[in-house]
């Protein structure tokens, strides 16, 4: 699953544009996971701040 660190996030939408699933949504001043995430990690790579992390459940 994708974990969003809202304190780190800069609300820029870079992750939204690279998401192959259209799963992320930048709503005014917060980022939200709105649809099914495939945990590909592309958004986490693109983030300028490191606010996104794919967490694999044990």
């Amino acid at each position, binding site marked *: 699953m994708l974990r969003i660190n809202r304190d780190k996030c800069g609300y820029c939408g870079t992750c939204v*544009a690279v998401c192959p699933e259209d799963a992320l949504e930048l709503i*005014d001043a917060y980022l939200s996971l709105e649809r099914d995430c495939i945990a590909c990690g592309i958004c986490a790579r693109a983030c300028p701040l490191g606010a996104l992390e794919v967490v694999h459940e044990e």
Partner: protein
Amino acid sequence: MKSSYDILVVGGGPAGALAAKTAARAGNSVCLIEKRSAIGTPVRCAEGVGKELLKEYIKPDPRWISAEIERARLISPDGTTVSLEQDKAGNEVGYVLDRKVFDRELVWQAAEAGADVVVKTRATEPIMENGGVRGAKVLSSGTPAEIRAEVVLAADGTEAQFARRAGLDTTVPLREMMSCAQYLMTGIDIDAGSTDFYLGNEVAPEGYLWVFPKGDRTANVGIGISGRKSRDGSRAKDYLDRFVAKNFPDGKMIEAIVGGVPVCRPLACTVADGLMVIGDAARVVDPLTGGGIGNAMFTGRLAAQVASECISAGDCSKEALMTYDAGWRASHMGRIIERNYKVKEYFITLDDKKLNTLAASIANISLKEFSVSTLIKELIKRNPKMLLELKALKDMLA
């Protein structure tokens, strides 16, 4: 906000504002919606724009010009500086804008031309009927509503979700997304008349770091790196922090922003039935410089002109709206984007050694004209050892 308009514009940046103004002036009923609660903020931009380009759309006004630029300097990895001086070149350089004020001015002009402007209103999805776009479902300050329109102009920037939800592929490949961070810094020693570009794989892999003056001792200090070079410990912010610690240790940071700049090719098609895509959402950013303001205004205005004609003729099908797509591709802007895409693809292959060699070869010359093609012609002339690869680059320009 009414429930039906001739033209609905999604997004209140320069593309959307120019589109709304142009469409309203042509006599259409127009609504511009912006998902943020204020126009122009937060800024996601280094704020540089060419003078001549800007003047085609608006009269320069000191209220939204932070600095006038006289030269650009390219600084190679070993510190070799190539200075491009306006007074030695035949053309003008540019301005650094105050986007918060600039964007408001553009939207104010759209409103004055008769467009409705509604903030804190987000298009959640297109209204689709018979395979075409007939408006948008919106959330306006949390309240759901539907806005129908003959044509929707998607000006929703980097995110570009509206066109995506209408069936166009707007996803940016990771390697072609520039991951960017920027500080507005004050109390720093800079050349207030120069935009500085730092190149190199240690400084900004597959991108560049910029210092764009915003006035005396104040500048946008920012960086863009390729998404594929971005990872924990070496993200845009990390590179920027290292540069700032080294070069401006006593500077004060009064704003920190981030953003993504798509440097891929433009969308394969920028129209659909009842839909036109403009500005960053259409991926018409200059792939070499990352500059998007001028191209946003150009595509916004052109799309609104074509939309007006199509509405008058009663045909807003994809085929009719294609006049816009074909128009911008055949334009000066369209040709420059295609050329600069190829130039960018070449430059990102260069290691620091080659960058240093190229910079040294042109460090002491004065260019007659401020342009990518002049620069490349000089590089070819002065680097016989790199003739083969540079020649290939020259052929791309031809």
